[in-house]
């Protein structure tokens, strides 16, 4: 593991054992998160992005289970720990959650305790992980609420979440995530449920905080516009697998995988010709029990070569420096 | 809905048992070995006989469905007769035995019954006898008819009231809804048993058993409809804003047509589940009232009436079958109905526990 990497996910498999059969929500995912970097994970709904995020904190609930693979977290002092090996309810993983890695969720409406005061939740988290007393925790909480842009922070300590707007709640969630100076922030579609203006404000805030605290962010989204704005690196996922991985500039300049390419085409552009039709990706994400054989994207792919694509799933290969793709088009191509 | 229901094995088995219980209620006359009020002075408090399959004789053992006769002796201390089973006295038993004539459903004259002693004058008390020497098994079977039907009829009445008022409440909303909701709240806030007791006590003693039967069902449903009305109202409210209802309205369908064609079918399954869950409550209510002596009265036989006769703890300790047999019936009926209703409800609405 390279020294500037703080999280390394190797061949992660998280499966759901449902009554109807096994759903391979995460099916052999590899990627890593370098220090002080924002990595965006992109893909349509149902691609396993959220489950990957939950796996990183070992939060996957039954019937889901991490079946194999490793998630290596590198502490500040260089100590490495494989999160997969920790007991999901044990002391060791709890010391990482909220302290080293924290998480914010898609629905700000339901991710705060509904009958708990905002201040109590902040103070509780700080007292749990930091070596400070209650007065200090209250003081820091107020400062933090102020920092994330909540007006009259001190008086908001006694508010309940239902008294706040969606944007404010998400700010509180961010404050909670920052409360113990964690080094990695997992943001699971944090702006999806918000209206457009609030979305932009929250994105600006996250971007600003990332630089200020020089933390790493794993940002899950299906919106490539967001990626362009805040991302450093991009991981494209499809049906539980990483299909392409590269820096933001590279991805936007040279999308290689047909899926990434299709995603790109579906973004409206400023120089958009009104006679041209905005393209959308053909078909939909297949049902988990109806995965096509071979390459999972083959049934929606414009370049599908039946004899190759339907027989085997190609491996994820580095076809340019730092640019990895999983597609037969670039097989043994080396440099493009 | 059906395939989801099938996943509930317990509910499925319960459904089969419920069906069985209703079949017993339907064919009570044929299934009961004796008439419910046929008494026998020689067999007061006779204990249950065991149904045997093989008979040991000097010539070896042979297959013969039978029960054993009784030996009677006088317990001078307790001043009552006591029975023991006499292993030497074999009473042959057969299916479709002839017994006292009866009318099935009050129409068809019949003599044969499902099971009975070959010689009708011999005692046959598989579940024992009561203080008048009446067969508990037969009485329980006849009681099934009354107790189970009172549940059905009562629920039917509550359903009519509940769907009507709940539907009105939910469809029109506004002040109408407000008034009906207040009434429901009021009815739910008063303890039912004292209210029922008050109403039931007002039934004139001179009424015929049939009149009392209907009066009791009406009294039970007077309070029972509120639960159903709430379900219906809730469904109406949520359906009113559903796209398919709105589009039907925009298409110019009449209100009645919307209700009958679109809304009723979509909450039918909920109604069925709620009804199934209301029946056991009705059964318990009837049983409780009859037990207290203000519900159904002899000569009508219901489970509650049977339990009322088991009220005296001294006679029960001498003849526990008086209590155990009807109690078992009530518990099984209520339990299976509950399981069935739960299964139906889960199947109708898997996201709402």
């Amino acid at each position, binding site marked *: 593991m390279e020294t500037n990497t703080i999280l390394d996910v190797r061949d992660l498999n998280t499966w759901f054992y449902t009554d109807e059969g096994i759903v391979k929500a995460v099916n052999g995912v590899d990627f890593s998160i370098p220090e002080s970097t924002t990595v965006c994970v992109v893909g349509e709904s149902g691609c396993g992005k959220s489950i990957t995020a939950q796996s990183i904190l070992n939060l996957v609930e039954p019937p889901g289970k991490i079946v194999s693979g490793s998630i290596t977290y590198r502490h500040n002092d260089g100590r490495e720990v494989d999160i997969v090996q920790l007991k999901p309810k044990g002391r060791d993983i709890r010391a990482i959650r*909220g302290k080293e890695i924290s998480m914010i969720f898609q629905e700000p409406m339901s991710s705060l305790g509904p009958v708990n005061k905002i201040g109590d939740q902040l103070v509780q988290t700080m007292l749990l992980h930091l070596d400070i007393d209650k007065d200090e925790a209250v003081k820091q909480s107020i400062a933090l609420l102020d920092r994330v842009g909540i007006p009259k922070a001190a008086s908001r300590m006694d508010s309940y979440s239902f008294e706040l707007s969606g944007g404010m709640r998400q700010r509180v969630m961010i404050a909670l995530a920052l409360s113990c100076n964690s080094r990695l922030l997992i943001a699971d579609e944090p702006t999806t449920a918000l209206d457009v203006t609030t979305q932009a404000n929250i994105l600006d805030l996250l971007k600003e905080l990332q630089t200020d605290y020089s933390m790493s962010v794993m940002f899950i989204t299906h919106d490539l516009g967001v990626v362009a704005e805040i991302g450093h690196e991009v991981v494209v996922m499809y049906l539980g697998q990483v299909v392409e991985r590269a820096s933001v500039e590279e991805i936007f300049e040279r999308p290689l995988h047909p899926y990434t390419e299709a995603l790109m085409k579906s973004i409206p552009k400023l120089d958009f010709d009104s006679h041209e039709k905005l393209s959308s990706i053909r078909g939909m994400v297949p049902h988990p029990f109806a995965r096509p054989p071979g390459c999972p994207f083959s049934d929606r792919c414009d370049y599908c070569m039946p004899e190759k694509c339907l027989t085997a799933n190609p491996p994820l290969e580095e076809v340019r420096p730092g640019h990895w793709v999983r597609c037969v088009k670039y097989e043994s191509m080396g440099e493009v | 809905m059906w395939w989801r229901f099938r996943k509930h094995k317990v509910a499925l088995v319960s459904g089969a048992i419920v069906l069985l219980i209703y079949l017993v209620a339907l064919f009570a006359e044929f299934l009961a070995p004796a008439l419910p009020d046929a008494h026998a002075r020689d067999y007061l408090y006779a204990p249950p006989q065991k149904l045997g399959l093989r008979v040991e004789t000097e010539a070896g053992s042979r297959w013969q469905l039978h029960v054993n006769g009784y030996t009677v002796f006088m317990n001078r201390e307790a001043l009552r007769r006591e029975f023991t089973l006499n292993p030497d006295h074999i009473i042959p038993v057969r299916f479709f035995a002839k017994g006292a004539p009866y009318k099935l459903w009050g129409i068809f004259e019949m003599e044969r019954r499902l099971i009975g002693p070959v010689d009708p004058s011999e005692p046959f008390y598989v579940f024992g006898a009561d203080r008048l020497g009446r067969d508990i098994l037969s009485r329980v079977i006849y009681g099934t008819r009354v107790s189970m039907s009172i549940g059905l009829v009562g629920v039917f009445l509550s359903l009519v009231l509940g769907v009507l008022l709940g539907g009105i409440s939910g469809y029109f909303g506004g002040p109408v809804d407000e008034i009906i909701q207040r009434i429901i709240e009021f009815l739910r806030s008063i303890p039912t048993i004292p209210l029922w007791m008050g109403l039931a006590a007002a039934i004139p003693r001179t009424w015929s058993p049939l009149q009392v039967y209907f009066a009791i069902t009406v009294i039970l449903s007077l309070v029972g409809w509120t639960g159903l009305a709430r379900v219906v109202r809730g469904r109406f409210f949520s359906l009113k804003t559903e796209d398919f209802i709105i589009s039907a309205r925009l298409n110019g369908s009449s209100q009645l047509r919307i209700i009958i064609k679109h809304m009723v079918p979509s909450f039918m399954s909920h109604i069925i589940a709620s009804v199934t869950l209301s029946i056991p409550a009705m059964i318990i209510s009837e049983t409780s009232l009859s037990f207290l002596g203000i519900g159904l009265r002899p000569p009508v036989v219901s489970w509650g009436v049977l339990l009322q006769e088991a009220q005296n703890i001294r006679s029960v300790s001498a003849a526990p079958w008086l209590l155990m047999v009807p109690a078992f019936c009530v518990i099984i009926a209520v339990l299976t109905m509950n399981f069935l209703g739960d299964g139906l409800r889960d199947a109708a609405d898997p996201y709402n526990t």
Partner: protein
Amino acid sequence: MGRYIIKRTLMMIPTLVVISIVSFVIIQLPPGDFLTSVVANLEDQGQTVDSATLAALQARYGLGRPVHVQYWRWVSGIILRGDFGRSFRYNRPVADLIWSRLGLTFVISFTTLIFTWVVALPIGVYTAVKQRSVGDYIATFIGFIGLAIPNFLLALVLMYIAFRYFNQSVGGLFSPDMIDAPWSFAKVVDLLNHLWIPVVVLGTAGTAGLIRIMRANLLDELKKTYVMAARARGLSEWTLLRQYPVRVALNPFISTIGWSLPTLVSGATVTAIVLSLPTTGPLLIEALKAQDMFLAAAFIMMLSALTVIGTLVSDILLAIVDPRIKYANRG
């Protein structure tokens, strides 16, 4: 908060009025007016009824006057003088007969409520957290049985078992030598010794119901994001459960006091008759059977009023515990 309490209390008044009307209607239901029963009763006791007494009684209860006048006399007597009328059977004022029995009914109902809570809360939480475990299935099964057995049947079976196997009679709330004794520590102990049977009988169904409610509510809450969010902050499972989902799931639990009270009082009535407890049940049914209607109406009205007040208390309690309700009622 104060405004909310006042609002709820005012809303209770019409309900109480309707309850009094219903109770009055019940007095009126039996054929013949109750003076006939009084006369019959007095004559049974070998007394002759002179016309002066009759006229006095008639005037007192406004008999022969329009129904609404009778109702007003009855109700104003209760409100202004605490006069519930006279029991014809006991030939005493109803007020003398009902209070101690209502008190004991309240004690039994309240104790049962506490009992159901103490038992149902931990079991409900356990079954939700350990969903589909053996313990869950056992609790669910016992819960179903608890719901399926009518109170009086459970009482009968318990009595039978106690009588048959322990050779003791379990009826009543006091030992024979304690019944008329003045209140003392020994009498309280004696009461507690007898109290547990009706409490178990009454509480079983309620406990089963509450376990199901708690389990269902908590299962709903456990699915919500805030639970995972709290877990993602590193809270231990126990702290997390206690401070987040259980607190939310507790609210419907508290509101169950409201609807469990009518059921409890109902159950207490039947159970009391079976176990011959000195509470309202046996006297109420006697009064109903003998058509001693003032006594019966007083019981029906007071029992109903008791539950309505109980519901009010639970609503206020709920508003204190759940900040969201206060919020919704602030405007």
